[in-house]
């Protein structure tokens, strides 16, 4: 057989011919259907620590469910943008996904039936999980009666302090019960050590640029940004008094110093702790995990007590942060996905392993009797930290979720900074903030109530 034309007669010569061949070959690989065996579950996460845990444990799940392949993908911080695009376009979303407490707000926007996550309430109720979980931890993942995720964690907050330095200032921290006690102790411990007129050590470090520490105090006191019905309550008396108290720690009592760097996890903040410039911090369980990995040399120096209470006998903790696991509506086999959810979040062996690496206490009450939570913690000089967390856990305040939380948190940061730097009074700052957020919500409601709605026609 004769080859019709020799290579040289190919238009533009040999080079383009080679490029064309390579192009066709790569097209084949790109568009060739992947070989599929059994069921596939795609599972997206954003946290490296979780990745290590799941990577080690997913083979166990796959062994329990032959014919199932779990595809675990850790996208880090960019996961939310990818998830957003997948939910918007109606395809490409994972079956199972973990989402954090602040980004979840944006995924709850729009009509309740159009939210991209499966309501897990029927499954949680019919299988009796509601009684086994700390119910206040379902609130961050619930909206209008539906539960879109199950909680990964409790994230109780304790007061972590440097015992030796407080003792050197004549303060026995275990005797602290209320915030008034703490202010008195803090005034003793906040000192100019070398007599140059500048304060060298502050009793506590607080974030004055973001909502984190103010929100810790507000939730502890039973307040919040939104109530259970989605109303804005950030301008009520509890919120205003709490902000006034928060600013007084900096300006009136002068026992607090703003966080070094951009947030509590900044290296400069850790340096200040090592130098004894800051003596205490409001620490959720995960923050203890960060300290352990970032400043292991401080082992034995820290101790923990419950947060000082607003009144004698009132709540001594709050909650900070959180992650959920949920099933997207694009999942083809929600029953199987539900099995994976339970395996990841309710399996006791897994939860013990999780505490070992991250110090995170699970919201599953049955799991708390495991001996590991009572073990002395060398990082805290032998204090059994897990026991303290579990003691505080039943008292965790609810934190109501809302689709407008992302915007609200962004504006709340500004309000707090303005109040702490005395550009506005706490009342002015929070009243203005509440009005802004109410008007954003009102505008959407007004728009959505009437007019032409253009359905995208996706599922």
């Amino acid at each position, binding site marked *: 057989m004769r080859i019709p034309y020799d290579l040289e007669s190919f238009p533009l010569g040999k080079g383009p011919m080679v490029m064309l061949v390579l192009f066709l070959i790569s097209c084949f690989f790109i568009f060739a259907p992947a070989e599929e065996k059994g069921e596939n579950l795609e599972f997206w996460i954003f946290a490296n620590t979780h990745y290590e845990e799941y990577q080690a444990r997913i083979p166990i799940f796959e062994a329990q469910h032959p014919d199932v392949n779990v595809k675990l993908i850790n996208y880090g911080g960019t996961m939310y943008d990818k998830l957003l695009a997948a939910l918007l376009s109606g395809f490409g979303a994972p079956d199972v996904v973990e989402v954090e407490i602040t980004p979840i707000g944006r995924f709850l*926007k729009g009509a309740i039936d159009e939210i991209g996550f499966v309501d897990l309430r029927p499954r949680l109720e019919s299988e009796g999980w509601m009684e086994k979980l700390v119910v206040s931890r379902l609130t961050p993942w619930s909206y209008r009666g539906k539960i879109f995720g199950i909680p990964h964690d409790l994230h109780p907050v304790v007061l972590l302090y440097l015992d030796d330095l407080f003792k050197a200032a004549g303060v026995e921290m275990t005797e602290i019960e209320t915030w008034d006690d703490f202010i008195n102790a803090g005034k003793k411990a906040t000192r100019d050590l070398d007599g140059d007129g500048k304060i060298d050590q502050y009793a506590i470090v607080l974030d004055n640029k973001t909502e984190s520490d103010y929100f810790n105090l507000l939730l502890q006191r039973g307040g919040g940004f939104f109530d259970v019905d989605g109303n804005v309550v950030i301008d009520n008396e509890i919120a205003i008094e709490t902000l006034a108290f928060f600013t007084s720690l900096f300006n009136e009592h002068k026992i607090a110093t703003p966080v070094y760097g951009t947030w509590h996890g900044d290296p400069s903040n850790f340096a200040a702790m090592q130098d004894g410039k800051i003596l205490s911090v409001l620490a959720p369980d995960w923050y203890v995990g960060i300290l352990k990995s970032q400043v292991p040399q401080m082992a034995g120096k820290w101790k923990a007590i419950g947060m000082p209470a607003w009144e004698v006998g009132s709540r001594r903790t709050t909650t900070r942060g959180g992650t959920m696991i949920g099933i997207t509506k694009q999942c083809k086999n929600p029953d199987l996905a539900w099995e994976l959810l339970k395996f990841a979040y309710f399996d006791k062996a897994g939860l013990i392993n999780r505490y070992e690496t991250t110090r995170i206490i699970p919201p599953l009450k049955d799991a708390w009797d495991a001996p590991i939570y009572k073990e002395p913690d060398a990082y805290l000089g032998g204090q059994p930290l897990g026991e303290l967390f579990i003691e505080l856990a039943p008292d965790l305040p609810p934190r109501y979720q809302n689709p407008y939380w992302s915007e609200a948190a962004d504006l709340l940061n500004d309000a707090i900074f303005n109040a702490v730097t005395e550009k506005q009074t706490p009342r002015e700052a929070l009243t203005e903030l509440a009005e802004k957020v109410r008007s954003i919500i009102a505008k959407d409601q007004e728009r959505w109530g009437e007019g032409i709605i253009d359905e995208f026609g*996706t599922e």
Partner: protein
Amino acid sequence: MNSERNRYNFWHQQQKIAPYLFIAPFYILFIVFMGYPLISSLIMSFYEMRGFQSRIFVGISNFTDLLRDPIFWKSLWNTTYFALGTLILQLPIALGLAILLNAKFVKGKNFLRLAFFAPVLVAGVFVAIIFNLIFDQRAGLINNEFILFGKEIGWLSKGEYVMPAVILTGVWQWAGFNMIFFLAGLQGIRQELYEAAAVDGANWWQSFVHITLPSLRPVIAFVVVVSMIGSFQLFDLPYILTNGGEPADAGSTIVMYLYKNGFQFMRLGYAATIGWVLFIIIAIISIAQLKLLGIFREE
């Protein structure tokens, strides 16, 4: 015979079409990844999302809202401030470095050129993280090692110092990059011009003003326009350096505000509006600059 002829025709046509086919990938990619998004974002700016699955027509209210949005104005000012900082501080420094590294008396030019260029090879995220440590109010290098105005400056914690900190970081990262363009421009100036000027008794300054600057005009125009476009698209550096624009939006830029609206607040319509307004601003500034620098003038 007939088939021979057909084959000839086929090849004849092929040769005409082939060039278009070879450049087609660019146009296909351009239409899919640029043309379509451009048009759909323009359409989107007249809508607002209602959750994830539907949107609602809102007319021009995204545009009117934007004009009344204080955070947008603040972000626009911050971005303009950065652009001015780039123009007034960074480009003269880049030009100065280029002149120094082009001078005969400087030793180790190649090493110095590489050293000044190197920061651009570092990803913006790392630059931001490192400068975060450098600018830290109490533990940072600048406040600890240099006494500035006899006080501790809250670079990243006081609103008025945030953008200067971002500008200084920008200078560190980009001055060396722009220097390379100026250097290339300087090397293209004919040496005879300077010799002739020297014969006529011109001093260094006179040669700089009357020979160097006019000869560099196309390079300056290019660097200014590209830097301005880059400045108005500023995002990653302040986003990390200021933890998303803190405190109180002092570090917010237009693109950061666009990102927040689109990806954090799920207001894709509003974000598209910000994008188009930004496009218009950049277009006006670029055209004005090119006009001022005489690039449209016929030589």
